[in-house]
């Protein structure tokens, strides 16, 4: 009797403990995998043709959603920046208001979330299916290292894809912002461009966003590979792994966004 009561009283503690050890397992697994991937990258021991195939599949095929996301994001940024800009000055500052938000935060952030949804989740589904159908074991049986052949190319593919997509998305979002400004507020694109290049923003703001995109890429790649490779339990297991990947990637993206913003000011 007293046993069950103490059991109940300690249940929240047990839940916290279980959560903590689960977190340690995930983060530790990602860390170990990162180390192994880095070792392969330094020695250049990864499959080149697999890398090219992955970069095409991840990068080129993601272009449409990056384009759509970026154009709409630019429009949203203009609508949201308008009241702020009108309060501190003239509409000439619209380019600055929409620009700093897009370049430093929203551009890299939304691109990362979309790439995490499309590429990261896809990657987990693919690796998870391979694990469930014992293809990874087959690779090991053939003395092919799964990290050389599967993980390292995907890691590079995701990081490069996200970096390039962010450059693309920044440019397209500013383009979308300029024309949303014209359509909704009647601000000429040239005025927008002047606000953008008038000295309040610099290359530093662009690099600020690009550094973030590399960090986000590493996080998406590690979490999607880790959850994919540790899938268990058939078709529902693949679904669960994909779900866990997108959640962990999203939390990782926001937490690292804060840390990186703070670190590079």
């Amino acid at each position, binding site marked *: 009797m007293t046993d069950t009561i103490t059991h109940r009283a300690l249940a929240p503690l047990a839940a916290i403990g279980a959560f903590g050890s689960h977190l340690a397992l995930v983060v530790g697994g990602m860390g170990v995998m990162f180390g192994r991937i880095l070792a392969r990258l330094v020695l250049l021991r990864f499959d080149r043709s697999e890398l090219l195939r992955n970069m095409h599949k991840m990068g080129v095929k993601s272009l449409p*959603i990056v384009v*759509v*996301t970026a154009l*709409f*994001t630019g*429009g*949203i940024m203009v*609508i*949201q920046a*308008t*009241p*702020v800009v*009108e*309060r*501190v*000055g003239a509409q000439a*500052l619209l380019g*600055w208001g929409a620009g*700093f*938000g897009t370049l*430093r*935060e929203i551009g890299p952030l*939304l691109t990362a*979330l*979309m790439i*995490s*949804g*499309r590429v990261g*989740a*896809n990657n*987990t*589904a*693919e690796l*998870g*299916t391979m694990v*469930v*159908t014992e293809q990874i074991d087959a690779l090991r049986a053939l003395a092919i290292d799964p990290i050389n052949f599967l993980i390292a190319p995907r890691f590079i593919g995701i990081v490069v894809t996200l970096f390039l997509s962010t450059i693309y998305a920044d440019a397209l979002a500013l383009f979308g912002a300029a024309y949303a400004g014209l359509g*909704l507020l009647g601000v000429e694109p040239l005025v927008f461009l002047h606000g953008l290049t008038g000295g*309040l923003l610099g290359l530093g703001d662009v690099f600020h966003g690009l550094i973030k995109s590399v960090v986000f890429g590493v996080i998406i790649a590690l979490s999607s590979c880790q959850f994919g490779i540790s899938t268990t339990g*058939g*078709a*529902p*297991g*693949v*679904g*669960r792994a*994909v*779900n866990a990947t*997108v*959640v962990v990637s*999203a*939390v990782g993206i*926001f*937490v690292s*966004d*804060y840390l990186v*913003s*703070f670190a590079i*000011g």
Partner: protein
Amino acid sequence: MTDTAPMSSAVGHIDEEAVVPERRGLALIGGLALDLLISGKELYSIFVKTLYYTARGTRERGAVVRQMFEIGNRSLVFLCVVMGFIGMILVYQAGLQMLRVVPELSLLGATFLELIIRDLSASICALMLATRVGAGIAAEIGSMVVTEQVDALRMCAADPIDYLIKPRFIASIIMTLILVVIATFVAFLTGMWTGYIFFDINPLTFANLSLVDVGDVSIGITKCFVYGAAIPVVSGHCGLSTFGGSEGVGWATTRAVVNSSLAVIMLNFFISGAGYLIFGS
């Protein structure tokens, strides 16, 4: 490979890969447009059926509450963590930028509150729900489709939309609103803390609601409702059109995340634009 999607029998599904060669140029654009049109029609039909069943369908006891727990309680910690960080990042970045133009930050809190209430809170929460809840719905319904449980439902004359999508639809609309309100509060607290630590803004100065008007609140609430309705419909559609074993469940989940995130971003643009035209800045 049998396609068990409810709508595709009406479209006349054939194994395209085998018959049609790879589309290029104009054919590619036309094909994409047709695909978009067909998905649009299917989404519309699911949405209308969901609304119909919400009014008239069978009421399974506890189904909505179970989904509310699944969608709401299980996402609470995730959303609070994300929005907490969003609050800190926004105040930090906006403070640094505003210092370049105006030397004092007394309006930072008011502007921040206006921005999160009108847009960012609802939209970022919805993006997060699209990833977590959308992936969950698609994975669940997708594995039911693959294991032929959905066909079994149809055999029992129960429409999967009534049984599977409707409870999630109702639960999602209610819980999105509640989650967004809680998450906004969390973002406000972390933002206030950041303003105090980094820019020495008095928390009382920061908690300034003078810029938030009826327009901002109504745009924010409209967004909550629309996103809450869109996410289960879009991801339920992806789940129901799953085919091809465990791999298919993976693809369906991915598609659900991407499509519902895109839906949120597009709806955001249109609602924000309409709100700007109706209420002004």
